[in-house]
């Protein structure tokens, strides 16, 4: 069994050659510390600022609005904490978010609640969408921040970010957007999208792990999370990850250069995969059918449990993920699937397949052939499926 079909690109991606090529000189040639005044340091500084300018251009931002971080989680933490404390200084203690954000956002908000902030978690619709009108209705005089993701990491639903941003702008409320799953996959422009703060992670678009950025619009105050040196204009201490930053810039350049072509191709493969898997009886597509990331497929299969499905697919060379409790080590299935209103027993049987430009149609055909066999086998040994079939338990999907 030699083949590996990697369809877990929402977890992480393989790096592309351009990103690796951009990183390589940073290890042994351009190894300087950008804070050093000598030639070696200044050469590194030049690489750093070139990367910053390139990335800013690709996001519609100005170079001075980009703060490099260790990744998406740090960017989320910093943006939310900063906006909360800036708000607090003006007597604002209310934050608006959704129930299906990434844990980097949710757990930061939970901590802030313990510190006395009030958070409104808007319920998303069953397709994962939330409307700008719902955000507007939740705004209060003391709202310091609205933080809503660009696209969901599990079910791929793309939120009406531009409209939400416009509402926030009109009411003078800061808008942070976790765009970790969106950047490099769909068009993102911080100006057109009315975004004040934006989180990005390089390894989601064929860049390196351990590097990301926080965009913070000029004029929006930004507090630091990590204290120390004066790097990133005093907003993020620590010697810059030059190799990672150069790799991220190259990866984003490549991703944006063929964004439309990729979206078209991946959406085609996605829809073919969805159609193929929907032929399995008592299956359900999670998230919105069309307003979703081009590479995201998330399905539930009734009567089986996701971890066993995942491991049997792995044995066939298919690398995917699941929102079942067993895969997370907790007792509850994915908070995202529960937020969409799925019952626990259905959410346990979820499968996420996230594609990238490296996946081929032949691979999709293979997945469409193999998944039904595994589902059928697991159902054949499942007492839950037996009850569903003999009528003692009601089908939910």
């Amino acid at each position, binding site marked *: 069994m030699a083949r590996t079909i990697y369809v877990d690109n929402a977890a992480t991606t393989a790096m592309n050659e351009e990103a690796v090529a951009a990183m390589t000189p940073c290890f042994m040639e351009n190894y300087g510390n950008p804070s050093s005044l000598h030639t070696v340091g200044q050469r590194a500084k030049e690489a750093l600022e070139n990367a910053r300018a390139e990335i800013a251009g690709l996001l519609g931002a100005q170079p001075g609005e980009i703060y490099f971080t260790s990744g998406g989680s740090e960017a989320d933490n910093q943006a939310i904490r900063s906006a909360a404390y800036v708000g607090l200084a003006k007597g604002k203690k209310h934050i608006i978010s959704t129930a299906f954000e990434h844990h980097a956002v949710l757990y930061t908000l939970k901590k802030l609640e313990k510190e006395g902030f009030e958070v409104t978690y808007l319920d998303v619709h069953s397709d994962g969408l939330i409307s700008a009108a719902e955000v507007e209705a939740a705004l209060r005089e003391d709202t310091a921040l609205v933080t809503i993701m660009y696209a969901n990491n599990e079910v791929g639903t793309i939120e009406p970010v531009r409209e939400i941003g416009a509402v926030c702008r009109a009411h003078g409320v800061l808008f942070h957007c976790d765009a970790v799953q969106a950047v490099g996959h769909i068009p993102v422009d911080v100006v057109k999208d009315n975004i004040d703060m934006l989180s990005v992670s390089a390894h989601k678009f064929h860049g390196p792990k351990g590097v990301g950025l926080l965009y913070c619009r000029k004029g929006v105050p930004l507090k630091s999370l990590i204290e120390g040196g004066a790097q990133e204009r005093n907003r993020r201490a620590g010697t810059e990850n030059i190799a990672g930053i150069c790799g991220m810039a190259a990866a984003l350049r490549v991703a944006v250069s063929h964004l439309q072509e990729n979206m078209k191709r991946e959406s085609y493969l996605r829809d073919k995969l969805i159609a193929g898997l929907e032929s399995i009886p008592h299956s359900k597509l999670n998230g919105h059918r069309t307003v979703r990331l081009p590479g995201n497929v998330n399905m539930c299969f009734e*009567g*089986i*449990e996701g*971890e*066993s499905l995942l*491991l*049997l697919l792995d*044995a066939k060379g298919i690398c995917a993920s699941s929102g*079942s*409790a*067993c895969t997370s*080590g907790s*007792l509850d*299935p994915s908070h995202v699937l529960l937020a969409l209103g799925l*019952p*626990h*027993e259905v959410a*346990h049987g979820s499968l996420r397949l996230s594609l990238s430009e490296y996946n081929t149609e032949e691979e999709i055909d293979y997945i469409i052939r193999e998944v039904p066999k595994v589902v059928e086998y697991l159902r054949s*040994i*499942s*007492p*839950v*499926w*037996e009850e569903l079939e003999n009528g003692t*338990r009601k089908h939910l999907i």
Partner: protein
Amino acid sequence: MALYSEKVMDHFQNPRNVGKLDDADGIGEVGNAKCGDIMKIYIKVRDGIIADVKFNTFGCGSAIASSSMAAEMIKGKPLSEALTLTNKAVAEALDGLPAHKMHCSVLAEEAIRAAIKDYYDKNGIEYDHAQFPDAAEEEEHIHEEG
């Protein structure tokens, strides 16, 4: 590093004694779908010995492997011996389970006990009730630990 031992993967991918017994003498079902695992064990008893055993499981890889191993361990054994099977013994026979998966082996032990109790009840056989603590209470306890 593999998630599970080779033995767990073997019993998960090639489970022994999987299926149902239409003429079972005792059936034990534990767990619930909301929590993501249900085990159902069927036993056929001849002269106080478990002559045949089959299982069906809804759950993760370690739940299926635990059912398979537990079924294999009690097959051909006297009921009295099957009742002494502990979850620890099942986990050890599988070359260990990750800490957060130990409850799968507990479910296997519980399912076997439930099947034997069902056999006793159906056949009016006297037994020591202290041997069979309330199953529902046990299950809640397990999940709190998880």
